[in-house]
């Protein structure tokens, strides 16, 4: 659609010109509003706000920051101060817009003023009671939101008071105000952990970044009930847009890095391993610090890869032997080191990892390479790299490319999982048939119900799985939890093999229907285990459970997308036949029992 490209192109140049000034934000917000999301190819995100203050002031900033992330943010704001009235009433304006995200922003200064203004007077027990009351009130609100809406919830935590009630003596108090607010925040985080689909919006952190001295503008607070200065409004909207993006868009999976002047100073081929900038002093220490930050990305599940025009053996030498090289060769899940074009390298990396190019972000100091990649593989997120290497870490962070609202155990183990994959590929090369390879893997497939511990990972798979996903229903964690609570058949699948644990990699959910049918709501498998025939075990498990409940057939709608063609062969191969007169629907006759299990792995059934 040329129109889409033109509109998006025009808007992009408007957005690029927005400076850190309120006037330019307001001007750009109007430009954003002129377009329909579809004209721009943006994802629409409906957001409902409930707050104890005039949160409307953020909206133009949020519209702009959302647009920078290809989100069309449509906001509605409940009248301030009416937390319970709005949230407890299922017919209130908060729910009417069918929001994707509900933002609950209650300041202690408004909702628990004693903690802020009377702190010195309150005995310890009273402080604890106030905290209990305030947290309990918000917990109650979140429960009501969960009852009335499937939206994801962002709960603001508390910023530190700009001035402490006890002044400079606070830090020496037996129970300080600072500790008390921190305790409120710990409690709010725990409330969110226990509420499906609820996340802390860490505004406390935003205030620390901006600085408490610049956080409030007393004039705005007293004239308009706005507890945020202009600088705070901009920073908060920016962070909120990152959260909205993380809540509604699959994060990138792999960070593809250049080497010369990106992971070390200078050009390896010209200067040699001993002379590159990587070490204790500037500029080498700036690159070393970037390595350290990248290692944290790896630890939280971001795959690292290299796309570099270099001599491969010299590069390996640096990663294996350089004393100040923090990242090691084994930290990279894929490497493309040669003199060919980088756009092709990115495609090759995605292929090697079994992910789509949309899962990639690209970090390269060369503006020429960045432009080249942007033009050739526009779906890759190209990060704007500053000239100054001491700012690389900040640029990567601010890109939001790897923002996750939660971190699962699978995330923490991801690089290891993909490295095990490399060993599996090695094995695949040494055997002659697929069956032989699969047997040699010594897989153990564990099938069990989806419990509350597994729910986070299940929701993540439902949100992210593109290839082996039959119904492609992107349900929220809250939706999934509700369906399961209502008695759906719900199966999770884990796969271990001789190279390690692949983790939770398959999900199937089916609903009982009248006339002996069970209808598959979700049937998916992580791309990590495609080609292992494990889908047969997952189908077998669902069929068994459906039969146990008296079903005689299993029905499913195959929702065809650009990426899930792999499913097309699976259904007929497993015995499904098209349902007459119902386009896209398939059925499996269960009257003769479940489909057979291949004799390629051990299957363990757990309740």
């Amino acid at each position, binding site marked *: 659609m040329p129109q889409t490209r033109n509109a998006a192109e025009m808007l992009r140049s408007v957005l690029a010109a927005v400076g850190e*000034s*309120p*006037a*330019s934000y*307001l*001007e750009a917000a*109007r430009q954003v509003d002129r377009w329909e999301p579809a004209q721009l190819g943006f994802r629409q995100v409906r957001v409902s706000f409930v707050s104890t203050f*005039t949160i*409307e*002031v953020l909206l*133009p900033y949020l519209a702009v920051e959302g647009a920078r992330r290809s989100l069309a943010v449509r906001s509605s704001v409940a009248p301030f101060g009416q937390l319970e009235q709005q949230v407890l009433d299922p017919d209130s304006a908060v729910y009417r817009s069918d929001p994707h995200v509900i933002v609950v922003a209650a300041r202690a200064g408004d909702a628990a003023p004693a903690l802020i203004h009377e702190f010195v007077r309150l005995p310890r027990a009273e402080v604890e009671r106030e905290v209990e009351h305030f947290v309990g009130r918000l917990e109650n609100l979140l429960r009501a939101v969960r009852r009335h809406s499937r939206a994801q919830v962002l709960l603001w935590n508390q910023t530190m008071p700009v001035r402490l009630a006890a002044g400079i003596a606070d830090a020496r108090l037996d129970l300080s105000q600072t500790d008390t607010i921190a305790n409120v925040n710990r409690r709010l985080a725990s409330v969110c952990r226990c509420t499906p689909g609820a996340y802390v919006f860490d505004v406390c952190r935003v205030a620390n970044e901006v600085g408490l001295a610049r956080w409030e*503008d007393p*004039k*705005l607070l*007293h*004239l*308009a009930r*706005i507890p945020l*200065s*202009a600088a705070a*409004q901009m920073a908060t909207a920016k962070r909120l847009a990152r959260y909205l993006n993380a809540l509604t868009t699959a994060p990138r999976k792999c960070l593809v890095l250049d080497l010369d002047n990106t992971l070390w100073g200078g050009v390896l081929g010209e200067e040699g391993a001993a002379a590159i900038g990587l070490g204790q002093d500037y500029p080498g220490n700036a690159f070393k610090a970037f390595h350290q930050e990248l290692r944290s990305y790896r630890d939280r599940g971001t795959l690292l890869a290299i796309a570099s025009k270099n001599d491969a053996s010299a590069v390996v030498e640096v990663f294996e032997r350089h004393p100040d090289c923090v990242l090691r060769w084994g930290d990279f899940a894929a490497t493309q080191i040669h003199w060919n074009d980088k756009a092709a390298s990115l495609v090759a990396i995605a292929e090697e990892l079994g992910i789509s190019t949309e899962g990639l972000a690209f970090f390269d100091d060369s503006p020429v390479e960045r432009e080249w990649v942007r033009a050739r593989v526009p779906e890759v997120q190209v990060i704007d790299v500053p000239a100054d290497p001491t700012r690389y870490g900040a640029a990567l962070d601010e890109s939001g490319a790897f923002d996750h609202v939660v971190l699962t155990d699978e995330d923490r183990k991801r690089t290891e999982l993909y490295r095990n994959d490399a060993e599996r590929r090695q094995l695949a090369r040494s055997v002659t048939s697929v069956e032989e390879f699969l047997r040699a893997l010594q897989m153990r497939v564990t099938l069990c119900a989806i419990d509350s511990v597994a729910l986070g990972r299940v929701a993540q798979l439902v949100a992210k799985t593109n290839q082996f996903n039959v119904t492609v229903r992107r349900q929220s964690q809250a939706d999934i939890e509700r369906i399961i609570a209502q008695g759906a058949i719900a199966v999770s699948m884990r796969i271990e093999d001789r190279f390690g644990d692949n983790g939770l990699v398959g999900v199937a959910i089916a609903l009982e229907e009248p006339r002996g049918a069970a209808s598959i709501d979700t049937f998916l498998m992580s791309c990590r285990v495609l080609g292992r025939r494990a889908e047969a075990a997952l189908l077998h498990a669902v069929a068994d459970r459906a039969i146990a409940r008296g079903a005689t057939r299993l029905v499913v709608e195959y929702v065809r997308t650009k990426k899930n063609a792999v499913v097309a062969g699976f259904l007929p191969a497993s015995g499904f036949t098209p349902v007459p007169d119902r386009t896209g629907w398939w059925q499996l006759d269960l009257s003769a029992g479940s489909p057979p299990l291949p004799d390629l792995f051990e299957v363990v059934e757990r309740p």
Partner: protein
Amino acid sequence: MKHDLKPRVCRVLASIFGVPLDSVDTSTSQATVEPWDSLSHIHLIVALEAEFSVSFTPEQALEMTNVQAICDVLRAKGAAG
């Protein structure tokens, strides 16, 4: 101050309220600009502070409801055009 503040003030108003620049002049006031409500007044105040690198008192913020008054306050603050 020799320089005229007015063109810059008018530009800020046009950006904040989304009205054509040539429709903004000395006679422009809260009464003549429809989108100039209490919330966009807040946006205007912080936008003017950023534009002229000044900080207003609450009283000044309340007074600045027309172009003339805005220019007067800015002049009193020593802002240049």
